[in-house]
């Protein structure tokens, strides 16, 4: 394996401080893996925030996720997995010096990435219209678009019959029936008393009855949703930039000699972006 890599990296100009192309390639690769570790920790902060709030207030996440469209999320997952395939194929093409195939695969990856961002933009737009935004801008106005909030969920999920149709009235009624769950008042507990969400069986029961009542602090879900998918989206845009750069390098003939380090590094980054999305899909869209 490393023999082949070494051999095919021979076309690369070795920087003055390295002994040979293989040492240079191995250094770049280790550097990239360390960088990906920092990326995981960077997202890790948001995953911890997710875990803390979901652990303390599971009802908020159960409620919020009904407003996401699983089918669009699944579509985006498929798009990104396909783009990972084309990215891996691009590395292989670079190793085998198939420049035409390399360009095609880079281009396809960019197309998939734009497709992902397009679907994401469509989803964001829907949230924007209905005021389902992060906490500071959270102002749900579902009545503007049809009788029920069901439409927010999206046409494709209409067959998700087990989800109770939520109307503004049921929400209002439910809130009145439960004065404790006043959405205008923070119900955060003093930390010393432990996680209230886990200790409150009635709230856990609420999501089993499948009657969706807007819980207190429902906006937290949307804050987390926008932070996580937003940061991920920025990484996708960065990936588009990196692949565009690779395309320029390929047109310039940089990879003609079989020097594939750059393609390999960008592809590694792209696989991580893909992997993070798979976690986001599971954690944000597929809550029950």
């Amino acid at each position: 394996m490393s023999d082949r890599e070494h051999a095919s990296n021979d076309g690369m100009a070795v920087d003055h401080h390295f002994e040979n192309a293989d040492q240079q390639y191995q250094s770049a690769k280790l550097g990239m893996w360390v960088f990906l570790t920092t990326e995981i920790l960077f997202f890790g902060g948001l995953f911890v925030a997710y875990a803390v709030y979901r652990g303390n207030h599971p009802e908020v996440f159960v409620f919020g996720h009904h407003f996401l469209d699983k089918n669009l999320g699944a579509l985006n997952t498929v798009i990104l997995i396909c783009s990972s395939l084309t990215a891996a194929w691009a590395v292989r093409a670079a190793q085998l010096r198939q420049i035409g195939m390399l360009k095609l695969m880079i281009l396809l990856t960019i197309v998939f990435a734009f497709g992902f961002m397009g679907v994401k933009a469509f989803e964001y737009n829907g949230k924007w219209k209905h005021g389902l935004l992060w906490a500071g801008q959270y102002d749900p106005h579902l009545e503007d678009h049809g009788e029920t909030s069901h439409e927010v969920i999206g046409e494709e999920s209409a067959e998700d019959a087990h989800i109770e149709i939520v109307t503004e009235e049921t929400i209002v009624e439910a809130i009145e029936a439960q004065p404790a769950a006043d959405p205008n008042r923070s119900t955060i507990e003093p930390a010393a008393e432990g996680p209230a969400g886990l200790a409150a069986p009635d709230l856990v029961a609420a999501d089993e009855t499948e009657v969706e009542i807007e819980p207190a602090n429902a906006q937290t879900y949307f804050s987390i949703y926008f932070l996580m998918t937003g940061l991920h989206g920025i990484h996708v845009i960065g990936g588009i930039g990196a692949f565009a750069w690779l395309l320029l390098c390929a047109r310039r003939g940089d990879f003609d000699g079989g020097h594939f380090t750059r393609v390999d590094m960008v592809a590694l980054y792209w696989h991580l972006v893909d992997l993070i999305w798979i976690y986001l899909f599971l954690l944000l869209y597929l809550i029950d």
Partner: protein
Amino acid sequence: MAEATSAPGGDELVDHTASNDNYLTHGKGILSWLFTLDHKRIGVMYLVAILSSFFLGGVFALVLRTELWTPGQTIMTADTYNKMFTLHGAVMIFLFIIPGIPATLGNFVLPLMLGAKDVALPRLNLASFWLWLVGATVAVASIVIGAVDTGWTFYTPYSTTTNTAVTAMTLGAFILGFSSIFTGLNFIVTIHKMRPEGMTWFRMPLFLWGIYSTAIIQVLATPVLGITLLLLVAERTLGVGIFDPALGGDPVLYQHFFWFYSHPAVYIMILPAMAIMSELISVFSGKHIFGYKFIAWSSIAIALLSFLVWGHHMFTSGQSGLMNMIFSALTFSVAIPSAVKVFNWLATMYKGSIRLAAPMLYALSFLFLFAIGGLTGLFLGSLSVDIHLHDTYFVVAHFHYVMFGGTVIAFLGGIHYWWPKMFGRMYSERWAQVSAFLIFVGFNLTFFTQFVMGSHGMPRRYYNYLERFTAYHQASTVGSFVLALGFFIMAGYLLHSLVAGEKAPANPWGGATLEWETTSPPAYYNFKNEMRAGDPYDLDALRWDPSIKGYVRKDPSSVLLSTGEES
């Protein structure tokens, strides 16, 4: 690489490379510096930048101490005072002490110790310096926009509601974080991939072990600070509500996030100082380092434990009693690897022939001050005592004993040790001793009084104080000016040495690590020959040569890589 000219001629080789071309003269003009990929020049630029930040932070500190000369108003209003202590903290932490040793001495010395021509990723190294400049500019610009008054920790909810320039300052710190990550990443790759022949992991100089452990923390902890500061900025600009109780968030979560980085960050500060110490103690005791493997492993142990103790900053935040106990116990466990290091250094000095040159004076100061700083850390790690001492001057004094008495003192020792290598000139030893003495006395006068004040209940960060603390505050202020005098003398003789200092030999101190095998200052490509590493602490392999006033190897070929081409 080894040219046919590299006949093992020893001293001649060293003289031969001492031609006029060195890294300082290799290119001319400001652009040849700003866009250099040479680790040595990047290290020197970092040194200038970081010492400028130290000066700025130091001026803030002197202003603070002057204000505290009397209770009530002395020279400024309470609002200005709040901004001053925040700026002092933020500048010293984010601009000076975190990048400090790795970015300056690490950048300069690490590839030389490896016998390498450069770090593995020189472009990333330059990018790190540029990010530092951008981050520093943004952070310093916040002073003009509306100086931050939150304290350097930016605790929510105050930091999300104050109208001072928290966004600019935290964005600056965010960018500086990336600079730090790039430096750490580079060092990890360099140490893994570029060690010379003969340098196994356990034949690395201990300086490299310390820098490597630091790099692990930089890479694993700094991204968490990045996301935390980004969340804080998002909180202020968009209102995402993660830390805002009015929107369902939790301000204490910010403290967890912040300290998850910032506790490991204090080991980013102290580990490179310990790395320098191992070199100084061995060389100036004229003895092989004692307990090499213990010192090496204790660096790794400190790096790993550093991630498990952040909760000790939050004993009074309403954390559960169980968590407090666990964090307290883990905090005590950090004392073990720290003590392992100190005992091994003492054992290295035992029966050594100790030379009290300036670097060693700083090393001895470190042992004394770090011991006080470390032991008072145990006071603060004990739950019951911490309740009494929390947020008092005792904490301030403890922190400064570790960070100033530890890191800064070792940094100064390192600067004095490698100064001849960096600039090819010797400084005035006599003035260096005067300055080291003033710094030691001034430091203790400034901060020991703060231990006393703190244990008597003087709260930290207060503008005003009770009459009975006046004597302590005035002693502390006098001490800070003595300290400043020591630094001015140091600046004087170091700058003077650049123009009028005696020419430095390749190896003025008798160190056996590879950086002493090249000329002072080093050639552009560091070494004329390819190097092979031996035992980095085998000081007996060197002898004093009075004719060049430096040390030379008894067998110069022992560190040269012999190849077939030579014969």
